[in-house]
């Protein structure tokens, strides 16, 4: 057994075998068994096992560095065996042979907590990510293998191969963790016939700090949290100008709030003026009412990691009416270099096409202390 004296990582591995299958064939139901059978009858091909397999194959050469803790059958074991892993532990036995439910996912995650896995590698979509997050919260870092449907949460590698790269770096101790948005369809609105995504919280996800190799002297070697701190310091310094500041959701803006010694509503919108909290967790109407009385206002907002929406997802309180009232020149977008490097497309979807057009094109994004990057913002044509 060559060189196996080092730490053996425990990876919790789970596959949602039915993730996203229904969408392609126009199914909306969520009942496990009949759903799957109906989907297969309609010609849907299970995508996630194939994607999960790619990641596991790429990790095979590192198999002596970790052990997989998983579930029986389609929820993990089948793929592990197919790829040829000999050593793994089945923690949880599925009742049905070829489908699983959200309840199964949650039960497995409780076992992952109990067995103290180092992180969870899962294959699925937003729903799966959310089910896992409901149980493990920030306790265990989670990393998604994208299964090919819409994935708004920021815990997914861009491709199954990239997910395997992140795992490899994790095994070598070269990753750090950062907060990542868990996003899913807002069910309340969905039942009323509106499709809108909502942030459900911030999970921990492993990431590889970017060492951007610059041509000459200096390289970015600050961590994501250092970048946030630098952005917050800069924002703190310029937020002194009698403007009303509308603070969007998320951890980047939260870092600014904590610099101001203000408790931020993580998933909501807060109003600040001269570095003091005016109103917390406001809705659209409340913002518009306050704006009536204010001469100058600015919006501080950060795009959602990986998925890239600046307006229109997770920040619906900052509606097109609010944006127009504030004026597009008074929008200050902020994001860490790492988040931007992981977010290839930036989008707006305010619900007002004209406004979306005005917001698209090259925009400045504050990325550090007195530093900005220029990025193209596109229209949501998906």
């Amino acid at each position, binding site marked *: 057994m060559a060189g196996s004296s080092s730490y053996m990582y425990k990876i919790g591995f789970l596959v949602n075998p039915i993730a996203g299958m229904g969408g392609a064939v126009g199914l909306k139901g969520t009942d496990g068994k009949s759903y799957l059978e109906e989907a297969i009858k309609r010609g849907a091909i299970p995508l996630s096992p194939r994607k999960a397999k790619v990641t596991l194959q790429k990790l095979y050469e590192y198999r002596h560095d970790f052990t997989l803790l998983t579930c029986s059958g389609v929820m993990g074991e089948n793929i592990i065996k197919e790829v040829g892993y000999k050593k793994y532990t089945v923690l949880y036995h599925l009742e049905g042979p070829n489908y699983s439910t959200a309840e199964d996912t949650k039960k497995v995650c409780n076992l992952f907590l109990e067995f103290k896995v180092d992180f969870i590698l899962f294959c699925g979509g937003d729903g799966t990510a959310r089910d896992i997050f409901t149980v493990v919260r920030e306790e265990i870092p989670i990393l998604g293998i994208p299964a090919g449907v819409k994935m708004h949460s920021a815990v997914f590698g861009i491709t199954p191969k990239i997910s395997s790269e992140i795992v490899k770096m994790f095994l070598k101790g070269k990753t750090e963790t950062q907060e990542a948005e868990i996003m899913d369809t807002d069910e309340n609105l969905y039942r009323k016939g509106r499709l809108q995504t909502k942030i459900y919280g911030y999970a921990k996800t492993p990431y590889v700090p970017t060492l951007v190799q610059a*041509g000459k002297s*200096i*390289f*970015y070697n600050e961590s994501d949290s250092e970048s946030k701190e630098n952005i917050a310091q800069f924002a703190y310094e310029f937020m002194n100008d009698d403007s009303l500041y509308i603070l969007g959701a998320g951890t980047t803006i939260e870092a600014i709030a904590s610099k101001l010694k203000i408790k931020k509503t993580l998933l909501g919108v807060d109003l600040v003026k001269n570095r003091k909290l005016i109103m917390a967790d406001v809705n659209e109407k409340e913002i518009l009412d306050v704006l009536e009385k204010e001469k100058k206002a600015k919006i501080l907002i950060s795009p959602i990691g990986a998925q890239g929406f600046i307006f229109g997802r997770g920040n619906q309180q900052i509606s097109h009416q609010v944006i127009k009232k504030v004026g597009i020149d008074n929008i200050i977008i902020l994001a860490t270099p790492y988040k931007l490097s992981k977010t290839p497309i930036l989008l707006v979807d305010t619900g007002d096409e004209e406004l979306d057009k005005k917001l698209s094109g090259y925009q400045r994004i504050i*990325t550090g202390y007195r*530093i*900005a*990057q220029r990025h193209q913002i596109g229209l949501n044509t998906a």
Partner: protein
Amino acid sequence: MEQIKILLDENEIPKQWYNIQADLPTPPKPYLHPATKEPVKAEDMAPVFPMELIKQEMSTERWIPIPEEVRDVYRLWRPTPLYRAKRLEEKLNTPAKIYYKWEGVSPPGSHKPNTAVAQAYYNMKEGVERLATETGAGQWGSALAFGTCLFDLDCTIYMVKISYEQKPYRRILMEIWGAEVFPSPTKRTNVGKKILEKDPECTGSLGIAISEATEDAVTHEGTKYSLGSVLNHVLLHQTVEGLELKKQFEQIDVYPDYMFGCVGGGSNFAGQCFPFVGDKLKGENPDLQVISCEPTACPTLTKGIYAYDYGDTAMLQPIALMYTLGHDFVPPPIHAGGLRYHGDAPLLCKLTYEGYMGAVAYHQNPVFEAATLFAQTEGFVVAPETAHCVKAAIDEARRCKETGEEKIIFFANSGHGHFDLAAYDAYHNGKLVDYEYPIDLVKQSLEKLPKI
């Protein structure tokens, strides 16, 4: 047939450098001592620089002789060719004529040895045995290693640790020329030791490396410090370029309408343009446009303020009146590392402030786009720094195409990019980030600061 290369004979290498201080309408404001805030005196600089260079720093003589030994070394690559960029003009279909002077022919591949050789020589003459300096990724370090090698001096180079580890080729070059290169911070200096105690993993910065090299010089007998840009004597040595250029233009009976050069500390462009700016100061050729080119990521001249500021992060160097983004500003990691300096040469800043020179700033991506077009037409792959003025020249030539003007456009081609191919690779793969300096928000944040 129109001439492509305008060449001079070896015996036409200038015998004197041109000191623009002689022609300034008002004298430059003095450097201030970082501790006392009093004007710096020659004695203050003596532990750091040899006397002859201190004299040059403060001189108002118009012409300063180039020692024969230095001219003799210059003959290895000087006079450098002036090129007519015929193929680029044709590609752009412009009526403008584009010229560039090519400093990439020197052994280290840039303009930097023009001063490195002179500095090594004066130190050798005054009995100095060893020079200490800092380098980012190694342009300046390799030039000084080359210069000291020829005059048999030892050379100690503090190279920012992260580039020492990740960009080995310039380091190897320095070692070939006999220099000892250390990844900074080191345990050789108190500054370095203190930093390593606090943060053993520290990957270094130019500011730290400057402090280490300075400390090394002042604490060791027979050792002095050497700086590769910014200071008056460095700009002076670089005028060998512009004086050659004048002769070359005279030879073909041309005078430029536009001069463009990239500006990091300002030495290469000052070297090319000061003999021409001297004409302007005397009232000749008032329409000549002299434009410094800089990155939007570090827009010292276009967005900075004109004020007294420290020359380095560690606040050890003299305080100078210049355009500055603040000595605590850490520019983002653009590929043109040589342009990432928060200030600029005080002389160049003064001429800019008084309106004799202008400035423009560009994003990385359009800059590499221009440099790629240049490589595809003229063949030479230029340094990322140089690429900034290639961009300016191409933009101006395109404008001339629209107006039909037959302007004469010159740019200072300061060096090759053979060690910077990773930067071109990043550009081709769409991996280059464009940076900006959020001037409006910076101003807003400064507005209510207490005035000191």
